[in-house]
């Protein structure tokens, strides 16, 4: 049985490729027709090539709970998701705008605090944030940029519009999978690339390196850039080594670095060599055992001091996470207005703050309809999916919210859009989101498209790779 698009039913959800059963969207017509033209054997052959490519290339990620078998193959669906360039151009501007405003905000938080005096954002909300780092106050990093690399999670609602679900400003991951997904798709469907004008994404590593070089405090012609990883047991280790390799940068662990007289060095076979920029993939709290978590063996003693003295570039800057708090998130549209004098191009998902007594009351009354999130967790941990929760889970959550309302916010369950995935030789709809990556240093850059994450189980909304999600290649297609 070959693929029959007439029997593909996304139901009430907005589907990325199909407008109604049997009717693909304009940009998806060539793709859907092509897929339907493949015989079962051919389709299976493509799927086998995908699996083989992923295995050979060693694309993997790690799941913490699966002790012993630390490397897991990357679950990839071979049907690409298509977004038109026209739509993407607007979205891309919105992402850039958002990151510029967020960086203004972070700089303001650690310096003048104008936004507090003007009562746009309540000061105590920021001071209470688990990601606020008082050590960073007064710091003026290069270009006044703190969050250099941002992974913004976008979802498409039932109305077909993109909404921002959250901003990841600490150590967002996933970009290597975005790049590898494209490599795999090119290996498997080379013929499709002839019929589509697909925006290439390969320049990311070059853009990343240029951005990192732009925050070298010494502005050397050939700065020494290192990628600081927690090590091989980290779930994103594959990505760390991939990015280091693509940039031609050194991949280091904390034990490879040391700080002397507030300058950062790496231990090489020639002795200690100076380091200009650190792209760190370690959380703030583990970064410098002298200042933060004393037990941390991942970080480097004195690293924060070296940065504060302006001797090394650090991306993302410590303390940038203050703006990736899910409560602060709700203020981003106001920030855009306040700092840039512009209207937000990309809307937020409507949100309820539990610190607001009226909102909190509403949240507690409607737990079964809402998604409740802790303010500063990532990877989908600690979330209550109201409509899918049990009574017991809701009761437990209500207690947590009452005990610490500042730490929770709630959103209605967004009817996430769907995209077809290949299951046993036929197509079925699954929910997807999108994580584009935005860079800001001396200038800004947005990846064309991003990482599309897929909830692999029927009806599931959980797309996080740490919780069994998969991914797809994402095409920005120019129809003109």
């Amino acid at each position, binding site marked *: 049985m070959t693929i029959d698009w007439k029997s593909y039913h996304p139901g009430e959800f907005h589907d990325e490729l199909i407008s109604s059963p049997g009717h693909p969207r304009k940009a998806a017509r060539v793709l859907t027709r092509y897929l339907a033209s493949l015989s079962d054997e051919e389709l299976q052959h493509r799927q086998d090539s995908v699996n083989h490519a992923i295995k*050979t290339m*060693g694309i993997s990620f790690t799941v913490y709970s699966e002790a012993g078998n630390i490397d897991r193959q990357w679950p990839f669906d071979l049907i690409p998701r298509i977004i038109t360039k026209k739509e993407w151009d607007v979205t891309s501007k919105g992402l850039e705008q958002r990151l510029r405003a967020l960086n203004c905000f972070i700089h303001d938080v650690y310096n003048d605090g104008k936004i507090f005096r003007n009562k746009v954002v309540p000061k105590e909300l920021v001071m209470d944030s688990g990601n606020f780092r008082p050590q960073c106050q007064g710091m003026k990093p290069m270009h006044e940029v703190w969050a250099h690399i941002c992974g913004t999670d976008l979802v498409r609602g039932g109305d077909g519009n993109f909404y921002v679900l959250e901003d990841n400003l600490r150590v967002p991951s996933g970009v290597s999978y975005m790049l590898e997904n494209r490599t795999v798709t090119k290996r498997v469907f080379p013929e499709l690339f002839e019929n589509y004008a697909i925006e290439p994404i390969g320049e990311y590593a070059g853009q990343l390196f240029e951005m990192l070089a732009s925050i070298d405090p010494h502005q050397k012609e050939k700065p020494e850039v290192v990628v600081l990883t927690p090590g091989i047991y980290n779930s994103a280790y594959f990505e760390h080594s991939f990015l280091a390799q693509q940039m031609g940068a*050194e991949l280091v662990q904390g034990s490879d670095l040391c700080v002397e007289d507030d300058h950062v060095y790496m231990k090489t076979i020639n002795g200690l060599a100076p380091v200009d920029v650190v792209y760190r993939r370690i959380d703030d709290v583990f970064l410098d055992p002298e200042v933060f978590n004393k037990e941390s063996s991942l970080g480097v003693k004195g690293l924060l001091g070296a940065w504060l003295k302006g001797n090394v570039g650090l991306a993302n800057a410590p303390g940038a996470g203050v703006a990736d708090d899910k409560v602060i998130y709700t203020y981003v549209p106001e920030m855009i207005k306040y700092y840039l004098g512009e209207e937000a191009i990309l809307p937020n998902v409507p949100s309820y703050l539990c610190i607001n007594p009226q909102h909190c009351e509403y949240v507690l009354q409607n737990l079964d309809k809402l998604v409740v999130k802790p303010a500063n967790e990532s990877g989908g941990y600690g979330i209550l999916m109201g409509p899918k929760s049990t009574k017991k889970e809701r009761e437990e959550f209500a207690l947590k919210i009452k005990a610490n309302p500042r730490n929770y916010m709630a959103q209605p369950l967004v009817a996430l859009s769907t995209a077809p995935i290949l299951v046993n030789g036929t197509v079925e709809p699954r929910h997807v989101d999108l994580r584009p990556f935005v860079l800001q240093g001396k200038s800004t850059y947005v990846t064309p498209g991003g990482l599309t994450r897929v909830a692999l189980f029927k009806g599931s909304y959980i797309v996080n790779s740490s919780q069994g999600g998969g991914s797809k290649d994402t095409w920005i297609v120019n129809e003109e």
Partner: protein
Amino acid sequence: MLSSVAERVYWLGRYLERVENTARLVNVYSSMLLDTPVGSHIGWSVLIDITGCNEEYEKSGQSLEEKSVVKFLLADGKNSASVINCVNMMRENARTTREIIPAEAWEKINNLYIDLREAIGRSIGRRARQQILENVISDCQRIFGVLAGCMNHDTAYAFIQIGRKLERADMTTRMVDVGSISLLPTFSSGTSKQRLLLEPYENVVWMNVLRCLSGYQAYRQKIHSNVKGEDVVRFLLKDNEFPRAIGYCLQDLVGHLSKLPNNEEVLRAVARVKKVTNEVDINALLQRGLLDYIDELQISIGDIHDELNNTWFRPVELLKVGQQQSQSQRGKMSLPS
């Protein structure tokens, strides 16, 4: 280059060479035993002796039969020197230096790992063993080929080659050792019946030692005489042209070391090994037995490893207690700390 990366690629080279050598060893030994007479008492335990894993093997309480020994050397997850474990460690070192080694080399290493994990169980029986081991050997050579052909011949490459040549020199000492321990004890202490039985097979043993090292052809081309213990030992210790001879490995090491900074101490350690091989009188050595001499040689090779550690991987001022592992005890193959 980072010290930690230098250490990892060095071990990558060592493990890759060790995998190839162990595969050769088991393969050739399997065919040699078909050539020796029943009752000659050249058993499978010799292979355990070569790898220096006697203690571990005894602890495991397994018999000295072919299947157990072969399984221990190839497929035993608990034996740190087994082929499957070495492939594992090699892949881990490659995975953690992917920013250094060519992507193509990584893919080949990863494939060797994937294929071998699937095939290793079948390598215990005789039927599939030879084919599987030959595949492993040619995979290793392809990987070295990609490294030689696609990678900058820079410091990282030098460390891979240093690891490879040091491992190879170490393995060659073990092979010379096996020639002697499989023969000498029988000659000196065995019953006269055993001696009579085995005497005609002396050159069979040495021939197979050469085969293990892919050196039979090279030996014949160069020495022009029948295979004799004395000539084989001289060839394997001193030759400067045969790539698996210790003499050649040392010379090659010097070439790679000369590209590295602060290499004086390491070069001195290499010179000490050279002295041990150059000055020995092979005739006298065979008379009194090789055992002590091989000890001395292995210790001096181990010293090179220690000097690498002290100079580049874990310089003394950064050394923390218990981080450094010495190789200078005879027998057990060295493992990274």
